[in-house]
């Protein structure tokens, strides 16, 4: 730092910018990169604070503090956001403004990369995870289950007669039903449980349960004692696979759950009608 201190500030800024460009290529995520950028700025110029305001086209204004540290409560977030896009330092670094501005552009790119990654893991219609995002959680849950012996259930849910719903209500009506199911799952699940839309009218749940009896209780709550959709007549059929008792790989869990689902469909075991036949 002593040597850096003798350099012109713009030289220091350019050196830091070069380092950060190289770091961005290997950063584990955009948000961690932004936190690192701000930390490096604070360190390089011995600043009291450095915050970034980034205006993402989807997320809107986002505020970042150096090192991911929580915000101090003496400044309201809205007042910090009101400063506009860019990196804001205390004290203001007028002499390095161009370099800091270039670093701010890097941070924008980093957040955009993260947001695109997020979108690749989520279903835009329901806001739930998609198959890819869900499988990341499923793989992590399997690892924990195998290591610690914790059990959980994978539940595949299929809407009954969804093609008929689309035919009757049109695709917009069908989409509305899917959104409603997504909302019902989001609001009805317990903390720690995870929901996803993994196919057209197929949903998946990762539930921390110990067997079919626990599943019955959750389905009761999710289903609210009746059907869903605009006319309250849409029902669903679930299929359950327990980890680690019945399967302990992603593929095997899906296979067992799918098999249970088909058996339940064949037996006419929609949720609310014959839940004891779920398995």
């Amino acid at each position, binding site marked *: 730092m002593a040597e850096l201190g003798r350099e012109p500030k713009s030289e220091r800024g350019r050196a830091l910018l070069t380092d950060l460009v190289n770091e961005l290529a290997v950063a584990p995520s955009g948000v*961690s990169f932004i936190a690192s950028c701000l930390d490096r700025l604070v360190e390089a110029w011995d600043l009291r604070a450095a915050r970034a305001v980034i205006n993402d086209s989807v997320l809107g204004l986002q505020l970042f503090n150096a090192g991911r540290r929580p915000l101090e409560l003496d400044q309201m977030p809205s007042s910090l956001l009101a400063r506009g896009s860019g990196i804001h330092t205390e004290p203001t670094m007028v002499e390095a403004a161009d370099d800091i501005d270039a670093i701010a552009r890097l941070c924008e790119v980093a957040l955009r990369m993260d947001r695109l990654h997020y979108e690749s893991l989520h279903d835009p219609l329901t806001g739930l995870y998609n198959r890819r995002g869900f499988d990341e959680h499923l793989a992590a849950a399997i690892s924990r289950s195998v290591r610690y012996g914790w059990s959980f259930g994978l539940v595949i849910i299929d809407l009954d007669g969804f093609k008929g719903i689309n035919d009757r209500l049109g695709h917009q009506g069908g989409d509305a039903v899917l959104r409603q199911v997504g909302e019902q799952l989001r609001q009805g699940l317990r903390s720690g449980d995870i929901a996803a839309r993994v196919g057209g009218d197929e949903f998946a749940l990762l539930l921390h349960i110990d067997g079919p009896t626990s599943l019955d209780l959750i389905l009761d709550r999710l289903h609210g004692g009746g059907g869903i959709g605009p006319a309250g007549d849409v029902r669903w059929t679930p299929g359950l696979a327990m980890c680690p008792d019945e399967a302990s790989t992603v593929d095997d869990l899906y296979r067992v759950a799918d098999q249970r689902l088909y058996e339940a469909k064949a037996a006419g075991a929609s949720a609310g009608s014959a839940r004891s036949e779920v398995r």
Partner: protein
Amino acid sequence: MTTDLDRLELELRCLPGVVAVGLDKDANGEGLLIQAVVLSPVAPTDLRSRIRRIVDANVREGASLEILVDSMETAGAT
């Protein structure tokens, strides 16, 4: 591939109304303190439960959650 904390931060930031996320050790220095900063005029009514659900899905143990709500009217946080 992001870490769990990276994913946690990004998922929280993707919630409508959430404008900042802070991550730090809690007061005991053992668990994780998660701060979510929310602008109330654009936050859905069930935002707290959605934040809690995302935290629980990504952090297995030892996390405390602090939600800072900015009403965008006058100074003072809750």
